[in-house]
């Protein structure tokens, strides 16, 4: 029974769901089944979110309670988590909806001016922007390592990157502004757009995309046919 629930049933569900999704693409009458499968996934994900929220709380609460290394970070996480849930559920600072002015909780929890809105606008957004901004520095450090001219391939990469960098900035346009329009492909922007991006990059990306599509077909078949069950932990 345990084997049926742990191994067989999940593999059968995965197989049936896979066949339904493929079938619905070609057989219009099977479309409601596809929608049904998607609804079930949404319900499962919503249920799992409760598990996730509980896990988050317990994971960090344990760290704080046992004063484990880095418990201060966990305390901040717990405070932010509980605080956001409370102000969201209680609709703190949400004015009543125009339609029901006498009902205190009738407004939307996302209403402008509410505490939840304020938290999102003035705490969450700046923090996200800060994390995203780090990319600029990381791109520079990664590019520095990648473009060191240590062998022929690296030199080619460096040369290409140099052209693209100039082609995507005003400096490239300015430097090759003297080139006649008839030879536009020889300017930095021209070389970038018409040669490097349109030919080499596109060709390389399409080759990767074809490989990815075939890889997806193969792994999907392995899962649908039950050949690969390692994601269930029952490979052996």
């Amino acid at each position: 029974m345990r084997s049926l629930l742990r191994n067989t049933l999940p593999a059968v569900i995965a197989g049936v769901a896979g066949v339904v999704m493929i079938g619905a693409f070609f057989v219009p009458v099977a479309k409601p089944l596809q929608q049904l499968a998607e609804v079930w996934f949404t319900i499962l994900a919503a249920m799992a979110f409760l598990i996730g929220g509980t896990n988050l709380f317990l994971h960090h609460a344990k760290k704080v309670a046992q004063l484990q290394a880095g418990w201060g970070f966990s305390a901040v996480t717990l405070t932010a988590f509980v605080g956001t849930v409370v102000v969201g559920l209680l609709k703190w600072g949400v004015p009543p909806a125009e339609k029901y002015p006498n009902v205190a909780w009738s407004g939307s929890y996302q209403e402008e001016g509410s505490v939840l809105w304020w938290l999102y606008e003035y705490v969450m957004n700046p923090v996200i922007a800060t994390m995203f901004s780090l990319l600029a520095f990381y791109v520079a450090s990664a590019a520095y390592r990648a473009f060191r001219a240590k062998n022929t391939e690296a030199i080619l990469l460096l040369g290409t990157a140099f052209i693209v960098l100039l082609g995507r900035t005003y400096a490239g346009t300015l430097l090759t502004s003297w080139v006649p329009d008839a030879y536009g492909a020889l300017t930095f922007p021209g070389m970038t757009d018409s040669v490097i991006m349109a030919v080499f990059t596109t060709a390389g990306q399409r080759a990767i995309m074809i490989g990815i599509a075939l890889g997806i077909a193969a792994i999907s078949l392995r899962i649908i046919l039950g050949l690969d069950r390692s994601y269930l932990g029952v490979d052996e």
Partner: protein
Amino acid sequence: MATLAAVIASLLLAPTLAYAAENAPDAAALWFDWSRAWFAAILVLVCGAVIVCTEMAKHGWSTYVRPIAGLAAIDDAVGRATEMGRPILFVPGIMDLDQIETVAGLTVLAHVGEKAAQYDTALEVPTARSLVMTAAREGLQGAYLAAGRPEGFNEERVYYVTDDQFGYVAYTCGWMAREKPAACFYLGKFFAESLLFAETGNSIGAIQLAGTAEPAQLPFFVAACDYTLIGEELFAASAYLSGEPQQLGTLKGQDFGKLLAGGLLVIGCVLATLSAMSPGNETLRRSFSYFTHVILGKGE
């Protein structure tokens, strides 16, 4: 049992029959979307080749699969973490289980987990989706059991962080900076966070293995990681690592798909060239249009 089967059948059939009844005037079009006939034919050919190769492998047909350096390095990475006495980090992407990359990442997690169990090395798996957390726990529990060390599995090391992309990055990179894992695996679906992970891992001197099917993120991983599984290599990973002839056979089936894609590319190039060289030739123009819009189109 019969009642249960009847309930399940009615649950599945009811919406289909209702849809069929609503669209009864177009009964012929209900059973097959003919605009997607070519797409179906190509799918049948590729999937058929995969199944045939699988069956042949099952009956003893030997298959050669080129060595994939990234996958061969998994043992080294886990061994390095063991020698250094530091944990291993596994990031299964930031998307949910409905993305095939996430499933592919979890299949590799099971293999990494088995190695970590054998070497008794801590494996940390922060997840960005609750469902991925539960699936990863199940997979790892099975892997530890397969390695003969079920008592070594600690489910508290597989936990949910947040659904938010950069919140997840902030936590994971912070953990990396504090705990300094010796090996980092990033296998799944990634977006802008790919470089943040990879550069943080690089800064702490971890051996890094990444894999994704997002072409836009591949350059970042290639630049900052020691090994990168490019596109199809990620999907081939579980078959390659399992070493089972049946699973390896599916990789051979993929090769037929590549041949087919190559043939279609050649036909397309020839038709496009001839069509451009003979602008007045209506037959060539129509052939090229049919090839690109009907045969290679999705019929939408």
